[in-house]
């Protein structure tokens, strides 16, 4: 009897899996990033990935710093929209994969990521490619971290691209309001990490009609193969949330969103170094999105004390659209032009 039950359960399980695979379709096996790559270094959760470039490609290596809030492959979701594929064809391209941080890193400060981890990656790249400095591109909070790093280690960064990176948090829009009221002390006392699903839900929450509009768009366009490819790849990315380490999250909310210490030039690393924007020398491109609700245009302004050469390009799209939308190619080309000049 029990044997029969077992086989019945196994049978039902097989049917459920088959149905799920059929329903998920391409989404089920969609890759996390499409450009071929190899891991050249790792330290704890953090890995340094090198993307395979065509033979003979050389130049100053580019290090991409993705956001800690989500997975890096939003910059590499499909061949058609991939920033990384474009960069890898021009120059040696590396990326820091923050992995899936768990509670074991919940006590590490934000400076562990924006200083220690990035410095380790830069050191590895310099050793491997025999250069003394690298170019950098930071996306979203990754841009904030790349900016902080360029303040701390001005000799190691030649060019810096800040892709929709919030720097001045004085008027950071809807997220600043939520940060102001967020019970950060209670969070710190009860959790070692900010769960990824909660972060993802908060992004959906501030755009209450987003899901409805997305479903409507799906209904209008699902017969287009190119739309479905990008839609599936994006859903794959959205369904892959990452937890944010607890102490780093506490510092992100208090030091950046609430106190705006980076712009004030009073942000300190855990080992007591000041993140001083006036020390920066890297040639910088502020590449922002006109319809960005996560990093509104005013937040991408650099501090007045920052005297490094800066140029700006604004793309008419949203925070995610700038990497995968119809204007993504313009954004990518702007970054390439800046890095090659």
């Amino acid at each position: 009897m029990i044997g029969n039950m077992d086989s019945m359960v196994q049978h039902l399980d097989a049917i459920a899996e088959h149905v799920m695979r059929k329903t998920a379709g391409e989404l089920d096996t969609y890759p996390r990033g499409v450009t071929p790559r190899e891991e050249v270094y790792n330290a704890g959760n953090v890995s340094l990935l090198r993307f395979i470039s065509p033979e003979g490609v050389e130049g100053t290596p580019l290090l991409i710093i993705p956001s800690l809030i989500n997975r890096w492959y939003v910059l590499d979701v499909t061949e058609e929209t991939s920033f990384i594929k474009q960069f890898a064809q021009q120059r040696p391209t590396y990326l820091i994969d923050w992995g899936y941080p768990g509670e074991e890193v919940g006590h590490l400060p934000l400076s562990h990521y924006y200083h220690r981890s990035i410095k380790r990656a830069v050191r590895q790249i310099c050793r491997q490619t025999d250069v003394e400095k690298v170019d950098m591109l930071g996306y979203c909070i990754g841009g904030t971290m790349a900016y902080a790093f360029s303040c701390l280690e001005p000799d190691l960064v030649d060019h810096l691209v800040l892709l929709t990176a919030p720097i001045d948090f004085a008027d950071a829009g809807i997220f600043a309001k939520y940060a102001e009221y967020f019970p950060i002390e209670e969070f710190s006392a009860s959790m070692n990490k900010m769960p990824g699903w909660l972060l993802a839900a908060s992004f959906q929450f501030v755009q209450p009609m987003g899901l409805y509009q997305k479903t409507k768009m799906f209904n209008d366009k699902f017969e287009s193969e190119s739309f479905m490819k990008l839609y599936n790849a994006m859903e794959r990315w959205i369904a892959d949330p990452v937890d944010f380490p607890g102490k780093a999250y506490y510092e992100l909310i208090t030091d950046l969103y609430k106190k705006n210490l980076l712009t004030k030039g009073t942000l300190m690393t855990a080992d007591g170094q000041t993140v001083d924007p006036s020390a920066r020398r890297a040639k910088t491109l502020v590449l922002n999105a006109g319809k960005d609700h996560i990093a509104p245009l005013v937040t991408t302004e650099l501090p007045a004390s920052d005297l490094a050469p800066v140029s700006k390009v604004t793309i008419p799209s949203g925070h995610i659209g700038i990497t995968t939308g119809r204007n993504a190619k313009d954004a990518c080309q702007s970054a390439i032009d800046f890095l090659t000049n």
Partner: protein
Amino acid sequence: MFTMGEDMMKQWANNWEKMMGEHLEKLVHNEKFISEMSKSIAATMTGKAFYSKALDEQMAAMNLPSRTEIIKIMQKLTDIEERLIDLSERFEDFADAQAKPAAKTAPVAEKPAAAAHAPAPAHDSKAKKHKK
């Protein structure tokens, strides 16, 4: 007739979307609403902290390690790993500094061109290939 009905439905759906969008947009931007929601989250988190503490005490009474203690051990291990990485980097830098003067005195022909640009081994000596 059918087209007219479909158009009416579309018009109705558009009006509903616009109305709901405006209403919900106002709601999620309302400071009073955000403040009340934050209080509710704070109460949940305080409850979670209280529950975790009670559970820790129960585990201690049974002479068993609690989840909090295991996480603390994991965090200690992370700290040790970080120190080891820092030390190995310092050692590598030291070895590089020692090797440089020797390389200067060595004949150029003895230094293989390929080796000069060969990538350094991965930290854990297990560089992984990622396939598409």
